[in-house]
């Protein structure tokens, strides 16, 4: 079987986990094996049902006091224990911070390879195409491993439920964990923005160097709010201190996947593009009709963002 490791926040399945189940379902099909799922630190019925809806036939739940909150070492140790005892044909997680971290922890403990951010996997000979440079280059690798540990690139597949959902069997996976592993568990959480976040926003309004200043983002904020979206920015903007780094879209920032990305005053350097290319649609507002982002966009407005963005907001208000 193929074992999909599920990222969750205790109540809801992470988008990356639903992507892993979607990717894993196809891979398990090519391997000719069933897909199982690993639910660590939780056995909520809703999470089990979501795993089943995405095609997991068996859900292995691991409960232990050390697993009461996320911790990379404890989670990695559980995955390693599952590999030893359940002998999966492959292990897959989503290519999120946690997915990559947990599989790297497991691989280190098992002393086996780990291939991060795969786009295409041929289980016949484990030849794999994976992401380098945040997606601006691809690497073909051949993997030689007792058990392949893989993550699928974030947003490289759209999460979809299975045509024939499973009512999964729940199997308790008894783990004996060293209490010392709690040393890397989450101690506290600070919530800064409840609700819509940059990586899940249906609309992102992005600003680049062309915005010109921190104050210049006010009209972008206004448009984002009208559309129930979030403001993003390029690396030039955070390097100038106009926006916090948390707003940065790109290889070293956040990967977005909105319904539409409105990119204003952004040239579209490759390091920004790889963070934005998960957008379903792109609308560029730029003075330069030859800018990279304009040539890659679905739609473009050629003009000064300082005039165009407020005009869009005004038009939306007029229609409401």
């Amino acid at each position, binding site marked *: 079987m193929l074992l999909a490791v599920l990222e969750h926040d205790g109540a809801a399945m992470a988008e990356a986990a639903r992507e892993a189940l979607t990717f894993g379902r196809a891979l398990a099909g090519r391997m000719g094996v069933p897909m199982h799922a690993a639910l660590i630190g939780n056995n909520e019925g809703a999470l089990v049902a979501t795993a089943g809806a995405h095609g997991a036939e068996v859900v292995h739940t691991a409960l232990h006091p050390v697993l009461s909150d996320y911790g990379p070492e404890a989670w990695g140790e559980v995955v390693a224990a599952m590999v030893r005892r359940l002998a999966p044909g492959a292990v897959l997680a989503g290519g999120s911070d946690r997915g990559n*971290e947990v599989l790297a922890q497991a691989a280190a403990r098992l002393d086996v390879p*780990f291939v991060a951010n795969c786009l295409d996997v041929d289980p016949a000979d484990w030849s794999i195409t994976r992401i380098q440079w945040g997606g601006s280059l691809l690497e073909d690798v051949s993997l030689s491993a007792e058990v392949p540990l893989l993550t699928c690139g974030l947003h490289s597949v759209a999460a979809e439920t299975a045509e024939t959902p499973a009512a999964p069997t729940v199997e308790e996976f008894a783990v004996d964990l060293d209490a010392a592993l709690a040393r890397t568990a989450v*101690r506290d959480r600070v919530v800064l923005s409840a609700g819509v976040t940059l990586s899940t926003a249906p609309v992102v309004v992005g600003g680049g160097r062309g915005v010109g200043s921190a104050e210049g983002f006010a009209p972008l904020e206004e448009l984002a709010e009208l559309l129930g979206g979030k403001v993003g920015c390029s690396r030039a903007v955070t390097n100038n201190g106009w926006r916090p780094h948390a707003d*940065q879209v790109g290889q*070293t920032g956040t990967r977005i996947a909105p319904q539409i990305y409105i990119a204003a005053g952004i040239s579209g350097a490759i390091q920004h593009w790889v963070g934005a290319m998960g957008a379903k649609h792109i609308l560029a507002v730029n003075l330069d009709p030859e800018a990279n982002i304009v040539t890659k966009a679905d739609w473009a407005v050629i003009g000064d963002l300082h005039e165009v963005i407020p005009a869009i907001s005004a*038009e939306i208000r007029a229609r409401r």
Partner: protein
Amino acid sequence: MRICCCVKRVPAPGARINVTADGQAVDVAHLGFAVSPHEECGVEAAVQLTEAHGGEVTVLTLGAPEAAEQLRYAASVGAHHGVLVPTDGSGWDPQRTALALTAAIRTLEEAGGPFDLLIFGNESADSGGFQVGIRVAVALGRPMVGGIKGIEIDGPTVRARRETDAGFEVYELPMPAAVGVKEGINLPRYPTMRGRLASKRLEVAELAGDALPGGQAMRRLHRPAEAASETVILGTGPGAAPSVVDVLADLGVL
């Protein structure tokens, strides 16, 4: 504090990355080099910690002999020592890299005492394996958390903040510990004149190190197929706003 910060020499981010004709390497003919961005911030974080708490920063890299340039850069922004594990410059797989770095850190610790903190970049800008730091930390038995965008030292504890979609998570690691940091933890300083002098004076120590290749072998690099897109120009200037709003209405995001 004794801090060891591991860095990687990579082609400077921002440029278009091309592949050599045989697909075996990045074409570096017209590229400048830099410390991978997360690790550049790691060096800054290490220097800030020693400025606040005393101690020394050792910067460690594994790579072609030219990677000494990146150690000199680190010295120019405040790192105290630079150590190079020289290779032939070919791309090592993550297991091999981690084994060699682990051995190098053991050697440095035998000579100078244990490091309180190991700082890695969350992932390298080029190969992006997301694992070398974690493998080293596990091999050395150190607690390790990645994605870190804030570090404070509180007695024997490293308090580390990790950004999430909604805010951040707080971790408290007992030292000796390891962290994988991300860009945004700080804005790295520029080298000062004094820093440039220090970088010239830096004596780069070399440690021989090799390890057996792991199970992941690179066969070929290639550029992704670029989806041909026909850009529809909706208009020029603010007069295009109605057409933009029509598009938004069609997408159902109004």
